[in-house]
C-alpha cells in the first residue's frame, strides 16, 4: 500500500508528461517532435549500437571528473572561507557575481586555456558546479550554532572530537544541499561544454543530430540525460531528507 502511495506521484507525473508529449507531437508533427514511443524505440536501438557507447563514456567521464573537482575543491574552499571571516567577506560578493554570470560567455576563454577536448569540458562543468558548493559550505561553516561549540567545550571535547562529532554533523545538511545544486549545475556545464568545438560525447551527438535535423536522436538523447538527472536527483534528495531528519524542517 505504502509503495503504491509513494509511487503514485511520480507515476502520475510521468504519465501526464507522456500524454503532453504525445499531444504536442500531434500538433507539431514528426518534423519537429517525434512521438514518445518511436523515440524510446530509437533510444533503445542507439543504446544497442557499438559506436554509441564511447560517446556515453566520454560524457560520463567528463561529468564525473568535473563533479569530483566541484565537490571536493568546493567544500575545501568553502570551509577555508567560512572559517576565516575576512576572506569570506571579500570572496562572497565575487562568488555571488560569478554565480549570476552566464558562464557560457567565458567558454571561449576556457577553450583557449584548456584546448579542445576533455580538459575544457571538465573545466567548464566544474566552473558551473563549484560556486554553489563553495557558497553553501561557507555559509554552513560560518553559521554553525555557537552553542553547540560551547556545549562541546563544556563536555571537554578534544579539537578532533569537536571537528568530527560537532562541526561535521552540524554543517553536513547545509553542505549537502550545496552538493545537490552543484551536481545539477555541473551536469549542465558539462553538457554545454560538449555542444561546442567537441568531437565526442552526447553533446557532440546532439549537435550533429541538430545539423542533420535528426529529431528522433535529439529527443532520445534528451530523454537519456533527463532520466539520469531525475534518478540521480531523487537519490540525492532522499539522502538530503535523511540528513535533515533531525533538524526542524
Amino acid at each position, binding site marked *: 500500500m505504502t509503495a503504491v502511495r509513494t509511487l503514485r506521484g511520480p507515476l502520475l507525473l510521468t504519465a501526464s508528461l507522456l500524454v503532453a508529449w504525445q499531444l504536442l507531437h500531434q500538433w507539431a508533427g514528426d518534423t519537429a517532435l517525434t512521438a514518445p514511443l518511436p523515440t524510446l524505440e530509437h533510444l533503445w536501438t542507439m543504446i544497442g549500437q557499438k559506436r554509441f557507447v564511447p560517446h556515453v563514456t566520454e560524457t560520463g567521464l567528463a561529468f564525473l571528473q568535473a563533479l569530483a573537482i566541484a565537490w571536493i575543491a568546493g567544500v575545501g574552499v568553502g570551509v577555508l572561507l567560512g572559517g576565516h571571516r575576512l576572506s569570506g567577506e571579500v570572496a562572497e560578493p565575487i562568488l555571488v557575481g560569478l554565480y549570476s554570470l552566464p558562464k557560457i560567455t567565458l567558454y571561449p576563454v576556457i577553450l583557449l586555456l584548456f584546448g579542445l577536448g576533455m580538459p575544457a569540458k571538465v573545466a567548464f562543468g566544474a566552473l558551473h558546479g563549484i560556486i554553489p558548493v563553495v557558497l553553501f559550505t561557507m555559509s554552513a561553516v560560518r553559521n554553525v550554532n555557537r552553542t553547540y561549540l560551547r*556545549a562541546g*567545550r*563544556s*563536555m571537554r*571535547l*578534544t579539537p578532533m572530537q569537536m571537528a568530527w*562529532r560537532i562541526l561535521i*554533523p552540524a554543517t553536513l545538511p547545509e553542505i549537502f544541499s550545496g552538493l545537490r545544486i552543484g551536481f545539477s549545475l555541473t551536469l549542465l556545464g558539462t553538457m554545454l561544454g560538449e555542444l561546442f568545438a567537441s568531437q565526442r560525447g552526447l553533446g557532440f551527438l546532439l549537435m550533429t543530430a541538430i545539423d542533420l535535423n535528426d529529431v528522433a536522436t535529439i529527443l532520445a538523447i534528451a530523454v537519456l540525460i533527463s532520466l539520469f538527472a531525475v534518478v540521480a536527483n531523487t537519490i540525492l534528495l532522499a539522502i538530503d531528507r535523511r540528513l535533515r531528519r*533531525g533538524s526542524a524542517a
Partner: protein
Amino acid sequence: MTIVARLTDVSRIYPPRAGHAAVHALGPLSMELRAGEFFSVVGPSGCGKSTLLDVLAGLAAPSQGTAEFEGKPVNGVVPDGVGVVFQEDASFPWLTVEDNVAFGLRRLGTDAAEIRRRVDFATGFMGLRDFRRAYPSQLSGGMRQRVCIARTLVLQPRLILLDEPFGALDQQTRLLMGDELLRLWRETSATVMLITHALDEANLLSDRIGVMSARPGRFIDVVETGWPRDRDSRLAERPDFGAVTSRLWSLLRTESMLALGQGAVAAQ
C-alpha cells in the same frame, strides 16, 4: 564549610574593536560557592551574569583576578567535575535523545554497560524514557532543555552551572522544571549555581542569592533565604516568601533603571 569554587577580584574587559570602545563587562568581584548549596545570581540585563558563569566554567578567561574550582585554577578550560547548561537550546539535532544524553560519556571512552546504566538513569530521572529514540525537533522546548540537563547529569558533575536554562519556557513549565532542578540538586548533592532574571525563581530555588549591580556587574548583596532543603514550588504560598522577593526587587530596582539607561545609550 567547604568551598567548591571561588572567584577572586575577577573582572572581564572586552578589548576595543573597530567602532566600539572597550567594554568593562564584569567586576572586579569575588565570590565563593559552598559545597552542596544552591546559589542563584540575579541582576539587571547586560550586567555580566553570563560572563560570570563563563569565567567560572572556564569558557572565558578572566581579564584580571583568578577563578578556582576545588582549589585548582580555572583558565579557559572547563574543569573535570563541572557541568554547564545553556540558555539556548544546545541539544544536537542530528542525534536522538538517547545519543544526546550519552554524548559526553562516549567521548570519554566510558565502557558501554556503564554508559547504558547512566543514560537509563538520567533519561528516567528527567522524564525522557518514552522519548529516547525521538529527535530533538520532535520535542517541545522544555523537553529539549531536559535533554541538555540529562546530558550534563550523566557526567556526574560536582558543580552544575545553569545559564538561564528556563529563559525560553512558559511560566508553568518553568515552575515544574524548577521543581525538577530542586529534586536533582537534592538527590545528586551537587553544588548548583543558577543565573536567572526571574526573582521568584531565584527565591524559590536558592539557599543564597547574589544580587548584581548594573554593568560592570558587582555583587551589591548576597541574600540568604533560609528555606528548608526539602522544598518545592509550593513554597510560594508561605507568607514570608513574598518578603524575600520584595527584598531582591528593592535591591535591584535602581540598578535595573541604570541598566535601562545604559541600553538606551548603547542603542544610540
